[in-house]
């Protein structure tokens, strides 16, 4: 049970840390520190079991149907990385307490840091490839957030984006790679995969899987050609650089290569890909590091080159090289983290990281200087420090791999050794010489506990360097054993192996590096050059920017080519596609249909013809005679409703009738605000031929599309009835849904969840329309009052709408319509109540209700109605949604799935036996939402006219109306 706790703890505390106040520095540090420290102790307690060769596993079912389990798995390698993550994490937290300035919002920092820690633990503990890829991406995300911590700085934003783009793309490659790998093996479980190395290496898909996984590892570990993101990531706060970009996250790439080493390594492709990238990286990184001016830049390039060194060792692929790789991973983490912290101290205490102006700091901060010099010694490979040991192993392996004839690898290794001594010298140069006087701040030693992490890490460098067999041997053995298993190589961790070639190479590198540094100082002073010589033209960052801008230009181009903001082209494409699809798929099979007119009632045919003619004429008139088109559309709607009834679909017919009415009112309300169209004839202008052609095309397309769709529907109706799902519903409506009206039972019970979604959408649409219309300002030409209301002869012009209905010309209509209101409401209630058993239901009842209210609006105007009736469309909406939702949730109380229906049989005193299905309340919610949203939309449109009357002058300028 310890493993899941170890994983969840950082994430949980990350949330806690995020919730603390901005000035809770000490509490944040205590929280993060205790989490790391406690976890570290927990991990340490596993050491005896790990040393016994045990693999600790924790499994939980994740997606058992797909054979995926959530597996946490700790072996020697994972244990080592966990110690690195937690141990250095603890030191970084302590360091960050002093480093972060009081203005920085620390909750965000520590929250991200803890989340990163959790993600990283997830990567190393994953016992499942998919899970590993998920945590992998999570480290990319948290790294992005941490690099961009100072998001007011452009370089931080740029660096964060670059790092994220590169590492997350690599993560996607990795994901694809592990999916292929899982396919080859037949399981995603790491233990199964690790045991299937022979099967994988001969598989046809081995190379794609290898390539994708290696791409993931190379991007994460900043290997050539993806190394460019790491120097830009130095915009992060220094604790982040020390933690993520030297000790842990960039090690995830090499961790992955180690993890999958038993499966993937040992082939020529592996060696070429991994070792090739590694050699390029270590050469470029170590050479570029010499010519940096920023201390952190130097350390970043040095990190790149050391990671390249580890990658080369993994690429070589011999068991001893693997030992060296793991050993160097540990060593690099210790000395590079301490160097980053030292760089941070210098930055913090002097205000600058520029090596061109920093001089003689040894006099002001002697202890820090000593620590940094020792750590740089480890970086350069000075004997009696840990870096020396692993670098010597590296030299030995490069000689081994080339044999007696091929020396290029050894030459590259030696060159890298020389360069690393040179840049170490360049770095420690800031501590020597005459003290610089013109620094932003007066340098002095940092606080005691800020230096403590550096001291501890440097002490570790020394201990490992002097007494490797006593200190690190067992840990290293465990890690190597976890990778290599039975075929453990014999190796000897000792400082002195006698005088041999690797030792000679080490010494040559030291001497050569020192000479090279002197030569550089004399002949080519790095301080006076802004570019890295020779290779500055091959800028990865520039290539990245080019690719990104190319992508964005390409995307813009595609949007311009295929996208549009106008609705006409979109509709054109849709209708053309529909016509084409019906023509291609439907017409060939239409020959098999029986004679379409055999059973056609001539009267029914005539009715259909009326509807069709109305529809076509509506399309014809839509451009210039909108009102006529609207009336014609109404004619089509009536015919459609009657056709529904003729074909025995009363539910549909009832709803269609009401929808027709509401649509007419809605369109008329909108028509008020559309500027009038004047025909070309009235304007006495010639219609251009192209315009005429376009309109003709649109008209023909509309008619063809409509005809084809109608024909398809008709053809479907002619087909003999087959076994469809409708029988299922018809049979079960009463027995399981408790209602005889299958349509309504279908809506509120069988497919209640669909209906729930639909009413939610309806409510959202109504609210959106309302929100949009609140800020709607009509076009200036339709702002004026309609001419009917300005005619001085009309006595109605002096009356308010309410008055007109009370005693004016609308008196007859007023009496009649007000009398009708209760009847309409009663009819709505009737339709609603019997909806479960006979045609009706919440939807149509809601529409009738809304129409009854809208009628009053039309009669007496918005102000009068709202003065007499307290309508609250929002409450209708909200209550409806709550009722529907609560009905669904009610089933949970009784232990049934969401929206399970239940029929209650009540014996009421007067009414007799009454059966109340729970779907009734659901239908009530639907009713309420329909009423609310219909009223909301119509009233929002109607209020436009009140608002425009309130506008100050009719001819006021558009700008003042905006303000009003």
């Amino acid at each position, binding site marked *: 049970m310890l493993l899941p706790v170890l994983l969840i703890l950082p994430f949980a505390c990350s949330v806690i840390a995020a919730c603390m106040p901005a000035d809770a520095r000490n509490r944040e540090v205590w929280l993060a520190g205790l989490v790391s420290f406690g976890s570290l102790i927990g991990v340490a307690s596993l050491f005896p079991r790990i040393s016994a060769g045990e693999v600790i596993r924790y499994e939980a079912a994740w997606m058992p149907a797909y054979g995926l389990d959530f597996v946490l798995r700790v072996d020697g390698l994972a244990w080592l990385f966990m110690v690195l993550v937690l141990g250095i994490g603890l030191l970084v937290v302590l360091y960050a307490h002093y480093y972060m300035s009081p203005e920085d919002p620390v909750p965000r920092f520590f929250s991200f840091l803890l989340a990163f820690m959790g993600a990283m633990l997830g990567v190393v503990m994953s016992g499942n490839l998919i899970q590993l890829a998920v945590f992998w991406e999570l480290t990319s995300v948290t790294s992005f957030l941490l690099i961009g911590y100072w998001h007011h700085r452009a370089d931080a934003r740029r660096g964060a984006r670059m790092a994220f783009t590169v590492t997350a793309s690599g993560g996607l490659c990795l994901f694809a790679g592990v999916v292929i790998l899982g396919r080859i093996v037949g399981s995603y479980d790491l233990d199964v995969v690790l045991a299937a190395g022979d099967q994988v290496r001969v598989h046809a898909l081995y190379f794609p899987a290898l390539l994708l996984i290696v791409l993931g590892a190379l991007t994460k570990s900043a290997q050539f050609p993806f190394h460019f993101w790491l120097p830009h990531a130095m915009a992060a706060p220094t604790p982040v650089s020390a933690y993520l970009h030297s000790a842990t996250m960039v090690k995830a790439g090499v961790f992955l290569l180690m993890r999958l080493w038993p499966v993937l390594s040992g082939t020529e492709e592996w060696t070429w890909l991994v070792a090739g990238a590694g050699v390029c990286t270590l050469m470029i990184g170590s050479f570029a590091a010499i010519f940096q001016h920023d201390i952190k830049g130097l350390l970043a390039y040095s990190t790149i080159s050391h990671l390249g060194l580890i990658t080369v060792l993994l690429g070589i692929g011999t068991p001893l090289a693997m030992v060296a790789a793991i050993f160097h991973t540990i060593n690099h983490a210790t000395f590079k983290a301490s160097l980053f912290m030292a760089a941070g101290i210098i930055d913090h205490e002097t205000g600058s990281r520029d090596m061109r102006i920093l001089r003689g700091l040894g006099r002001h901060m002697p202890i820090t200087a000593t620590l940094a010099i020792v750590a740089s010694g480890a970086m350069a490979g000075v004997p009696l420090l840990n870096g020396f040991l692993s670098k010597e192993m590296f030299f030995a392996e490069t000689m081994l791999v080339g044999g007696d004839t091929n020396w290029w690898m050894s030459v590259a290794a030696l060159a890298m050794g020389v360069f690393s001594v040179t840049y170490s010298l360049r770095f420690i140069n800031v501590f020597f010489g005459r003290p610089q006087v013109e620094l932003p701040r007066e340098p002095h030693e940092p606080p005691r506990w800020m230096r403590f992490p550096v001291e501890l890490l440097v002490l570790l460098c020394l201990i490992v360097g002097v007494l490797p067999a006593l200190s690190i041997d067992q840990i290293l053995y465990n890690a190597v054993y976890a990778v290599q298993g039975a075929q453990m190589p014999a190796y000897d961790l000792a400082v002195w192996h006698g005088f041999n070639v690797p030792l000679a190479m080490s010494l040559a590198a030291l001497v050569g590096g020192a000479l090279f540094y002197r030569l550089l100082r004399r002949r080519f002073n790095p301080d006076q050059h802004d570019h890295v010589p020779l290779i500055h033209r091959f800028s990865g960052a520039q290539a990245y920017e080019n690719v990104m801008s190319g992508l964005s230009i390409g995307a813009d181009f595609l949007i311009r080519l295929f996208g549009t903001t106008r609705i006409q082209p979109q509709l054109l494409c849709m209708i053309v596609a529909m016509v084409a699809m019906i023509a291609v798929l439907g017409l060939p099979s239409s020959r098999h249909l029986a004679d379409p007119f055999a059973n056609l009632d001539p009267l029914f045919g005539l009715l259909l013809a009326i509807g069709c003619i109305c529809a076509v004429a509506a399309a014809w008139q839509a451009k210039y005679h909108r009102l006529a088109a609207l*009336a014609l559309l109404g004619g089509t709607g009536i015919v459609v409703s009657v056709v529904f009834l003729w074909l025995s679909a009363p539910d549909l017919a009832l709803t269609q009738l009401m929808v027709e009415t509401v649509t007419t*009112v809605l369109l008329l309300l909108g028509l008020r605000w559309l500027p009038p169209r004047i025909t070309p004839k009235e304007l006495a202008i010639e219609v251009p031929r192209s315009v005429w052609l376009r309109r003709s095309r649109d008209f023909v397309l509309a008619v063809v599309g409509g005809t084809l769709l109608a024909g398809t529907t008709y053809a479907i109706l002619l087909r003999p009835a087959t076994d469809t799902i409708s029988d299922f519903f018809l049979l079960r409506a009463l027995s399981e849904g408790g209602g005889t009206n299958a349509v309504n039972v279908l809506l509120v019970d069988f497919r209640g969840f669909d209906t729930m979604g639909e009413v939610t959408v309806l409510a959202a649409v109504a609210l959106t329309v309302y929100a949009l219309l609140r800020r709607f300002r009509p076009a200036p030409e339709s702002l004026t009052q*309609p001419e009917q209301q300005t005619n001085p002869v009309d006595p109605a012009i002096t009356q308010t709408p309410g008055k007109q209905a009370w005693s004016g010309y609308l008196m007859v209509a007023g009496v009649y319509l007000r009398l009708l209101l209760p009847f309409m409401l009663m009819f709505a209630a009737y339709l609603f109540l019997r909806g479960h058993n006979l045609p009706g239901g919440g939807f149509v009842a809601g529409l009738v209700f809304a129409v009854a209210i809208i009628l009053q609006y039309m009669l007496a105007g918005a102000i009068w109605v709202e003065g007499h009736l307290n309508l609250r469309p929002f409450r209708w909406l909200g209550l409806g949604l709550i009722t529907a939702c609560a009905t669904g949730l009610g089933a949970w109380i009784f232990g049934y799935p969401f929206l399970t229906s239940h029929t209650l049989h009540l014996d009421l005193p007067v009414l007799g036996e009454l059966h109340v299905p729970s779907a009734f309340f659901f239908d009530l919610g639907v009713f309420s939402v329909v009423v609310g949203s219909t009223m909301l939309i119509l009233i929002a449109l109607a209020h436009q006219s009140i608002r425009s009357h309130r506008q100050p002058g009719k001819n006021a300028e558009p700008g003042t109306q905006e303000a009003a």
Partner: protein
Amino acid sequence: MLTDLLSLAMGFATLCIVLAMLCCLVRLLVGPSAQDRVLALDTLWMCAMLLILMLGMRFGSLIYFEAALLIALTGFVSTVALAKFLMRGEVIE
């Protein structure tokens, strides 16, 4: 005998109603004024109501009478809206 007569009468009535709808269609199409179209639409609604009653008789179902009732109750709403629009220039003042 009486049943035959009834069905004959129903068929004739249906035919007349559909022909009336055809006449409404002509008015809807040619106009000439907007008021003509509104009247035509109103008549179309009424014809539809009658047609539904005829259908109800033909199929012997009570549901059809409710559909006719619904038209009787709310069918005029479109007409009112159109008339209001023509008379006052906007539907809701």
